[in-house]
């Protein structure tokens, strides 16, 4: 069983901290209170002593025999009061009067009278007494009067307060802890609900979303984030599912061709030429499958983010010319003209092979779909910190509803026609992928003449001018050669 302390929940942790902080605060508070109360009590006692002292001065008179006695109405008899002691000494130390509780207090230190604090605490008969002693004059005689009060009552009261504080503190902490726990549970309950709701949303029910009661509080924001994550998951799941279905379809088609060809070939005796024909067809299909698998692998590696780009600073126009020159022969075959409107020095930091493939694919597309004798226009320029490569054909264009999906894997506007061209519907997907991983953007638009214009936007590279780079590269190369020799 999982103990409470093995991996405490947020609730328990919160409560624990809350109780700890509260305990410390309560201890500080109780101590301060006790100290203040004690101080206040002692002050009160001293005030009372002061009053007693003054009252005694009033009520004591000298007797003719040179002693001292209480005078006047004796509504308050000091002799019956066992919490107080009154003592009077003459200037030469003779005790003139003693009344009050029957307790033997230590003698007065006459020498220090009037110099040290008049109030002091003394111990007598196992009790604490508070005493005030001072010289005064009674009936014209200089005497020393000491009034003492027992501290016992005060101590009892302080003790009671201490007991109340000591017993109350843990009680308060426990009660507050329970309250805190309940509060924490209440506050965290939506998270538990969220967790169990999120758990219900599995791969099969990815379209479901969590309800957001209040989008502005913390839980609401968390829920929105989780919902967004589910959204992303759902779309990649959908993509994956579609991709898997399409891929297996695309692989099955050549596979079934291979199979049928093989079966037909063995079914009847044929001459060598026929067999050669059949085997050749099979090999063509195998070739198609091999290409397809290579491309799919590359795309999936791109999806997994395991492709490392080896970027270099390149002139986009140069790259476009290069791609055009390698496909030029295809355009020639169709009597098409490739026209260039290229601004030189539009620098981009890209992986040459990856981006070149994108350009080649789009150019191939333009040549393939442009009619015989038409023009394919290649434009390279820059604007707003972006490099632009546009390839415009005079083909039939792409219907508006397909323009988004044209870059999807395996998407073909015209199923039969594209297959005859030998494409698996991955050329543009590869192009988009290649542009995307360079942080660029690719889209297709309709030209005024109804053809298509593919626009590749890439971040401009505005770092070191190429001349410098070229010089460095040259130097590096020379150095490498030299060291090899």
């Amino acid at each position, binding site marked *: 069983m999982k103990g409470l302390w093995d991996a405490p929940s947020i609730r328990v942790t919160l409560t624990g901290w809350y109780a700890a902080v509260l305990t410390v605060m309560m201890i500080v508070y109780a101590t301060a209170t006790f100290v203040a109360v004690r101080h206040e009590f002692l002050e009160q006692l001293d005030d009372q002593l002061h009053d007693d002292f003054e009252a005694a001065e009033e009520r004591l008179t000298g007797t003719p025999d040179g002693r001292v006695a209480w005078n006047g109405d004796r509504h308050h008899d000091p002799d019956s009061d066992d919490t107080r002691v009154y003592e009077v000494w003459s200037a030469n130390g003779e005790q003139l009067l003693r009344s009050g509780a029957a307790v033997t207090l230590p003698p007065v230190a006459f020498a220090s009278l009037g110099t040290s604090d008049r109030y002091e605490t003394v111990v007598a008969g196992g009790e604490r007494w508070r005493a005030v002693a001072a010289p005064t004059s009674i009936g014209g005689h200089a005497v020393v009067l000491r009034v003492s009060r027992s501290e016992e009552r005060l101590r009892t009261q302080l003790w009671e307060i201490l007991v109340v504080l000591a017993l109350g503190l843990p009680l308060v902490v426990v009660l507050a802890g329970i309250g805190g726990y309940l509060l924490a549970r209440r506050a965290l309950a939506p998270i538990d609900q969220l967790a169990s709701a999120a758990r219900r949303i599995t791969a099969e029910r990815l379209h479901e979303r969590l309800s957001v009661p209040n989008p502005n509080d913390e839980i609401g924001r968390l829920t929105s984030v989780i919902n967004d994550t589910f959204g992303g998951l759902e779309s990649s799941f959908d993509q994956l599912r579609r991709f898997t279905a399409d891929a297996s379809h695309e692989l099955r088609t050549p596979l079934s061709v291979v199979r049928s060809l093989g079966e037909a070939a063995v079914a009847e005796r044929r001459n*060598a030429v026929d*067999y*050669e*024909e059949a*085997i*050749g*067809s*099979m*090999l*063509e299909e*195998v*070739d198609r499958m*091999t*290409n397809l698998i*290579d491309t799919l*692998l590359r795309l999936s590696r791109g999806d997994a983010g395991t492709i490392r780009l080896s970027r270099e600073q390149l002139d986009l126009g140069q790259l476009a010319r290069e791609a055009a020159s*390698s*496909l030029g*022969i*295809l355009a020639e*075959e169709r009597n098409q003209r490739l026209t260039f409107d290229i601004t030189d020095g539009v620098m981009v930091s890209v992986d040459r*092979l990856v981006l070149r*493939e994108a350009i*080649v*694919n789009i*150019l*191939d597309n333009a040549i393939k779909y442009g009619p015989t004798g038409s023009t394919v226009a290649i434009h390279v320029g820059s604007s707003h910190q972006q490099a632009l490569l546009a390839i415009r054909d005079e083909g039939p264009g792409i219907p508006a509803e397909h323009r988004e999906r044209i870059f999807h894997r395996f998407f073909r506007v015209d199923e039969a026609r594209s297959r005859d061209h*030998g*494409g*698996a519907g991955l*050329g543009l997907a590869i192009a988009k992928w290649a542009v995307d991983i360079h942080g660029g953007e690719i889209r297709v638009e309709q030209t005024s003449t109804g053809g298509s214009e593919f626009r590749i936007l890439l971040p401009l590279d505005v770092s070191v001018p190429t001349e410098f780079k070229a010089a460095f590269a040259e130097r590096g190369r020379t150095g490498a050669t030299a060291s090899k020799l």
Partner: protein
Amino acid sequence: MFLTFASGKETRASDLDNMHHVRILIVEDERKLAQVLASALQAEHYEVVIERTGENGFFRANAETFDLVVLDLMLPGRGGLEILDTLRKRQVHTPVLILTARDSVEDRVLGLDLGADDYLVKPFALPELLARIRALLRRGRPTDSLRLKASDLEVDLVARRATRNGHPIDLTVREFELLEYLLRHQGHVVSREMLAHDVWKEPRRATPIDNVIDVQMARLRKKVDVEGHERLIHTVRGVGFVLRQGEP
């Protein structure tokens, strides 16, 4: 066998074969593939030994003398890379061509680092394997001649001139390179992969490039195989192209 990758003694003849019989060890666990490889290599008049486990392959390579080892990387027991490593550590320097289904750069680099001489990624084209094997066996021997010949077709590599029966053929740079490549592999089929890689210098084969190759080949053929001369450039359907004599 209807597909022959070598068309006869006269085209296959190389100085190597005259010296001794070329022995090739194939270490490959996939029975069918091993057999196909063996028969294709035997058709080229190589002597072939097949081993189907890493252990046996290693002992064979260690104990006997071969001119070349074709080594699969994914083997039961001892892996191809391990065998290669051990062989090289024991100073066995037989050229090794590795076959791998894993085409990640790391694997290739590792293989080449451990002393492999070349690699091919499965599925590979048989003509390409044969071409690589020829290249490895030829290595270190100066075979580059300045003049290539087939029937009445002559190519002067220095003057960059091609003639047919003495009549000059007007070729573009690319067409000349293509013809030179076909002539160098005379009698052997070259695949589109090989052309894309070796002539077009494309690191990857892609559909557009295939189309370019086809168009270029058609043009070259139109210029080389003119009326009244023997047809030299042939398409081997599903495999590639071959330049050879003695075919209708």
